[in-house]
């Protein structure tokens, strides 16, 4: 277990002050938060005045907050080609300007940790993806610890916890500690713990003070420690069933297993699992324009789509569902682990909840364990 970083600051935030605090945050940044939308909870940009729509009750938004650092469609550059009177041609490329800073408010610890897994890909190696970097640099993450993990949660299977701080600048812990119940069943206040300088700045700002973000009352320090520890020690329903995921090296020898054929038969080759997943990052690049000018952008792509690997000359290395299904799970549980030393999954459980045909990672992990090598 990774050691727990020393908090930079701790505060008490009254529930009634959340709206004002977020309003103050919106002034300088784009705030993205879970919002209730016709029965579904969705992560999206908060319009001014929507502070009270924030849904801190539903554990999983349908979509993950990854759009804040890798938007589903992100312009990379604009191009404009022109021809002068003599037929001389010119081409002008403009990289897109950096985005507005974003505050992710109310993400769950699993989603906050997922951001860190993106860093491995986009910020390491010989190439730093600066489009990603500018978004990442401008990102502040305010996570909220889970009072009661959902049925499909299994973050604990990856050494994460409902109260974990990985990837978060601030974590909000309901003062009354973990437990069942409606959003109002809490104590009416959160302990806000800043783990980074960015988080500290957020808590120490004058706007925060104006919104009622106050020091933790003297004598409550021990309670705070106990509450945070309780969140960190919380088990997740599916995580408890699954135990710690440990299949990376076993999968080394299972590439040719007939199991993949069997598990893939059910897949309908839609991209739901990859698009709702907070850790799936594969993208494509395309141009869109007319009359010699346009935009080059990248967009989420999915290894589940048959065209993902289709080459210009018509060769497709993964024409079958078996190969594509295997790719997704091998990528998360084996390839990525080889490259970066950890799994490409945070156990948020969205694939469990969203897959139209009930084909998801915990199931595959369980079944892979039972396979003969």
């Amino acid at each position, binding site marked *: 277990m990774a050691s727990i970083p020393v908090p930079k600051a701790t505060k008490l935030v009254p529930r009634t002050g959340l709206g004002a605090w977020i309003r103050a945050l919106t002034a300088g940044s784009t705030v993205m938060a879970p919002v209730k*939308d*016709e*029965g*579904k909870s*969705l992560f999206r940009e908060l319009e001014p005045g929507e502070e009270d729509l924030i849904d801190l009750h539903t554990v999983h938004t*349908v*979509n993950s907050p990854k759009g804040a650092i890798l938007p*589903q*469609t992100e312009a990379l550059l604009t191009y404009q080609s022109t021809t002068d009177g003599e037929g001389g041609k010119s081409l002008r490329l403009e990289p897109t300007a950096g985005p507005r800073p974003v505050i992710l408010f109310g993400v769950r610890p699993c989603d906050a940790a997922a951001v860190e897994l993106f860093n491995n890909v986009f910020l390491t190696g010989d190439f730093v993806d600066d489009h990603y970097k500018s978004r990442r640099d401008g990102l502040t993450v305010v996570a909220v610890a889970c009072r009661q993990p959902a*049925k*499909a949660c299994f973050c604990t299977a990856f050494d994460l916890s409902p109260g974990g701080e990985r990837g978060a600048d601030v974590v909000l812990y309901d003062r009354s500690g973990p437990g069942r119940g409606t959003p109002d069943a809490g104590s009416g206040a959160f302990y806000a713990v800043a783990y980074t300088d960015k988080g500290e700045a957020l808590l120490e700002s004058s706007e925060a003070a104006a919104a009622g973000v106050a020091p933790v009352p003297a004598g409550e320090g021990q309670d705070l420690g106990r509450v945070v520890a309780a969140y960190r020690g919380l088990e997740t329903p599916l995580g408890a069933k699954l135990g710690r995921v440990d299949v990376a090296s076993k999968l080394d020898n299972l590439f040719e297993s007939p199991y993949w054929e069997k598990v893939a*038969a*059910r897949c*309908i*080759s*839609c*991209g*739901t699992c*990859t*698009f*709702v997943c907070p850790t799936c990052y594969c993208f*494509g690049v*395309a141009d*869109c324009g007319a009359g010699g000018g346009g*935009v080059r*952008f990248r*967009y*989420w792509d*999915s290894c589940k*789509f*048959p*065209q993902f690997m289709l080459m210009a000359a018509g060769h497709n290395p993964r024409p079958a*569902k078996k190969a594509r299904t295997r790719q997704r799970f091998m990528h998360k549980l084996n390839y990525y682990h080889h490259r970066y030393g950890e799994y490409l999954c945070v156990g948020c459980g969205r694939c*469990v909840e*969203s897959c*139209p*045909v*009930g*084909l*998801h990672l*915990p*199931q595959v992990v*369980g079944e892979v364990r039972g396979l003969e090598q």
Partner: protein
Amino acid sequence: MPRKLDVKTLGQAQGALRAEARRLLTDGTVSVFLGHEEGWDGLPVAFFAATPEEAGRLVWNPLVAFNLAKYLLDRLAGEEKVGIVVNGCGSLALDRILKDHRFPRERLYVVGIPCTGLLDPEKVLALPDEERERVLEGGEAGEDLYLKRCGWCDAPNPVVYDTLIGDPVPDEPVAQEYPRVVELEAMTPEERFEHFKGLYEKCIRCFACRNVCPACNCRECSLDQWEPLWMGRSTGASEQLMYHFIRAFDVAGRCIRCGECERVCSVGIPLMELNDKFLKDISELFGVKRPHVPADIEPLGQFALEDPDLEGAV
């Protein structure tokens, strides 16, 4: 000559289904049988029984909401004969594939089970444990627990089968109504535009609605093409408008109104609002009474000399 097996309850139906699948797999009538088994979380998931023993894992209960017919397209290659179980709407999906000439009837053995209604798995899962068990054992379930499509179903009995398990259920014709379309039609164009814009914006374009749809069964989907690029790869309301128009129009006249597109949508877009408009218009413009039931020639694949004229129509 179709076989008929007598059963009285859901539990008996499940037993008869297993027995029938076992028989088919044992005597070699089929080499695989498409049905459902209990998934990791208790919900039925698609299952492909390949041995007589595996037939024992088949389940039949009010949660088998998923149409299996589309999986036949995965088995086009080869000569093997495939068994499949269908209820009423499942058989419409199957008939859709058959009428579109996308799978040969000769390679199919169909086991049909009359349907007394399907429950919405999502809603059932959310019930308290005891209540859930009671409902799953065949207890009374509130109307709101049923799948939306059961509300307009007029085909509870399989329309295609080789073996029928149980007696046909009373088959009362349901007048097809489209209340939500009527509601939307009553809005101003601007209100409707805003309404649909909100719908497009929510879409994450995962293609689940397309991929689950039994009427979306082309060999190659035009939406996947780059040349011509029917739908840009960027996301946003504009391209999503194109996507949802193409999807809905391409199944117009062939949609079986199973509502699977809407059920599998992870962001909860009420897609039947788009499909139902076509069903309603086709019904009204061309006098088709049950536009969702597969016909030999679909309404938009034919014409009549006396069709209303368009010129100058506003």
